[in-house]
């Protein structure tokens, strides 16, 4: 009986030993897996760094291209001139001032034939809208020089609107297409200055669209209000 018990004990102790050995083995394996894992992690990290570096290089390259208007001229037969003022936006934290009393100043460039007439239509319908937008009339949206927009921001505008005839409706056949092309490039330029996209709004308003005029004015005023005043470093 005792012998049997001893045998049992021996066998139990053997089993404990074997379990211990197994644990040791497992621990070793785990360690090696861990080592392997950290190696993988290191490799991954180095790869991520490389990708990041590549991205930076690429982004840098893109940026260089964007800041060379001469190249744009070649491809689109259009041009955005270097502005005669240097504009740099302050950090978002500094500009994010939103108070209830804040009334943004917005300059609206309207073409004589469609959008200015659309604004008049809103007037005839006595359809009220905020007073923040100061309208500057041009004969055609094609006359809206990107310099006008930069000038407006420099002189204290918090937002700018360019309203043109609908595609196909331009009184001068295609001035609105030029305006639309220039706006696309202007957006990139403003982005480089840190001026938010919502501060420069482009749309088509016809002579009959008094209600649309009121809608885009109201919405733009609200968006620019939410962004707060534009502060520029000279």
């Amino acid at each position, binding site marked *: 009986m005792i012998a049997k018990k001893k045998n049992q004990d021996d066998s139990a102790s053997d089993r404990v030993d074997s379990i211990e050995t197994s644990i040791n083995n497992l621990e070793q394996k785990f360690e090696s897996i861990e080592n392997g894992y950290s190696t993988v992690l290191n490799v991954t990290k180095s790869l991520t760094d490389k990708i990041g570096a590549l991205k930076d290089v690429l982004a840098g390259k893109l940026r260089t291209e964007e800041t060379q208007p001469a190249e744009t*001229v070649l491809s689109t*037969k*259009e*041009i955005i*001139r270097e502005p005669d003022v240097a504009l740099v936006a302050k950090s978002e934290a500094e500009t994010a001032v939103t108070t209830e009393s804040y009334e943004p*100043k917005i*300059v609206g460039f309207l073409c*004589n034939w469609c959008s*200015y*007439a659309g*604004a*008049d239509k*809103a*007037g*005839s319908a*006595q*359809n*009220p*809208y905020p*007073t923040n937008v*100061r*309208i*500057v*009339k*041009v*004969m*055609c949206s*094609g*006359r*809206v*020089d*990107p*310099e*006008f927009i930069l*000038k*407006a921001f420099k*002189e*204290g*505008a918090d937002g700018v609107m360019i309203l043109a005839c609908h595609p196909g409706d331009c*009184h*001068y*056949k*295609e*001035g609105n297409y*030029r305006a639309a092309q*220039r706006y696309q490039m202007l957006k990139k330029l403003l982005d480089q200055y840190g001026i938010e996209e919502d501060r420069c709004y482009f749309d088509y308003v016809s002579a009959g669209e008094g209600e649309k005029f*009121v809608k885009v004015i109201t919405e733009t005023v609200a968006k620019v209000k939410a962004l707060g005043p534009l502060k520029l470093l000279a």
Partner: protein
Amino acid sequence: MKIGVYLCECGTNITDKVDLDQVSQSISPIENVAYVTKIGLMCSFDGINSFEADLKANKPDRVVIAACSPRDHEATFMKSMNNAGINQYLMQMVNFREQLSWVTEDKQAATDKAVVMLKGAIARVAYQEALEKKSISLCTDVLIIGAGPAGLKAALTIAEAGRKVTIVEKSPMIGGLPVRYEELFPKMECGPCMLEPIEHEILHGDHSENIEIITQAELLGVKGFYGNFIAQIKKSPRFVDVNKCIGCAECVAACPVSIKNEMNSNMNEKKAMDFTFFGALPNATYIDYDACLRSKGESCDACQKACPIEGTVIFDDKEEIVEKNIGAVILATGAQLFDVSALPNLGYGKLKDVVTSYEFERILSSGGPTGGQLLKSNGEAPKSIAIIHCVGSLDEDHKSYCSGTCCQTGFKFGHELQHKVEGASITHFYKQFVFPGKSDYGLYNESKNNKHAKFINYQSIKDLNCTESEDGMNSIAYKGSTGKTGKVDADLIILLPATIPGADSQALSGILEVTLDKEGFFEELHGLVDSAQSKVKGVYIVGSCQSPTDIKGAVNQGVAAAGYILSGLVPGRELEIDPAVAEVIEEKCAGCRICTLVCPYKAIQFDEESKKSTINAVLCQGCGTCVSACPTNAIIGHHFTKEEVFEEIMGVLS
């Protein structure tokens, strides 16, 4: 500088929402503001008088008017400026009514905005320049390309007003297509009977001395602009003196060479020396030189010998280049038919007795290949006829538009068939019918009441298949729009092809810089209110070269173009040039030519010698697109200069 500011109360329309006294106080201290005057209702008779009297008394250097929209009364107040002896461009309007008092609820907010708006105008007006209207002499003669109904009626209208007209026609005859049609819809009027009096009026009428016709001619080039074009015209030799020829046809009988008659779609033959067709005007023969034996080096002079009038046949007639100074051009070059061989399932060119509408017009014509008898190619009268409408029209694979005139043509044919072949069965295959207007449904009604006529609506031209049966008859297997299939025998199949732009449209578009629309027709300035004007000033587009149209539409456009010309180009009057246009400052121009690419009016020329751009003030419409595009600020957009706009921007933001 003395700036006078006028504030209109507009009854109470402005004063209800804007405190003009407060506005006046706010702007009076601004530099250069000499005085601020309120006027009750400025556009009224009294208002204008008091404004003009005030201008004369105060003699301001610049004027700012805050009133209604400049779209309402800018022109009124510009006249007052002129009346007071002040240049009209030294005034700026501020829109206090439509864009302020009518759209602002809070009076203080409106008053504050009013001040800001005025500041912009006051800042801007100081920089405005006195612009003088210029004028240049102009030529009132007119060039018309194409001698169809539209071109001829335009020519007559202009000639009757005592103006000189030159008509350039590429064929040897005038009258266009309809003069070749025996009868015309909607009232089955005889084509030649309707057009010949007009042609005679052109050739021998009271005002024919004002009209020069150059046949077998084409436009080679055009230089210049509205009021001052120079056109180069190439005139091919006719070899017959039109003024001497009496149209006796002796030369035709004598000519030994027979050729395919293109006028009759090669369905019969003509002579190398022949008329276009008997009755064609001018009533003179011509030599098809490529067919003439003389062009092959032979010394045939049969026609010259046969001619009873010496000097009429001129073998050494030469190609000529004619130059004309003209003020305006009318394009009346017409259209052509869609090439039905693009639809092989219709069997055109493969099956006999499948003809186009033009070919069938010639078969019906007394001057046609059958002498006006309705006969098939085997010389028998057809018993069952199919008329396929909308061939190539209303078809996304071919011409998506409706050609507009083929329905009427189809029912005109129905009418002719019904009367010429008693009891003939007529099947109309169609996609859509259109007969707008007060008289255009008549022929359709007649077909509808013909018990031998039937109508099958189809969806796609692919659902029709024309084949020749064993008995030699043609038949059409079809799937109707309801999905029902069937077969119709037809020993004559008439196709009504889409109307497409004329073959010369592309070349003329290049010469005159007139744009084409996506279908290839000349593009109108405005589809509803200016459809007879192209986008190039002084170039008018009339008839089916602008859009598929019937004779009525074409003639109306021709006369409309004549109206534009008679009112725009008046003898003794000079062409007034708007000074609010763009101008190149030569010394700043770098010669990059970006401006020439963006100008929608081709108003900018590049001088290859000086390497500078110049803007033609007559063609410039003052949009300012080139001004914004110029990378060296070398273009001034008068009345919207960079300085003026910058000042306004600074003003409204101050």
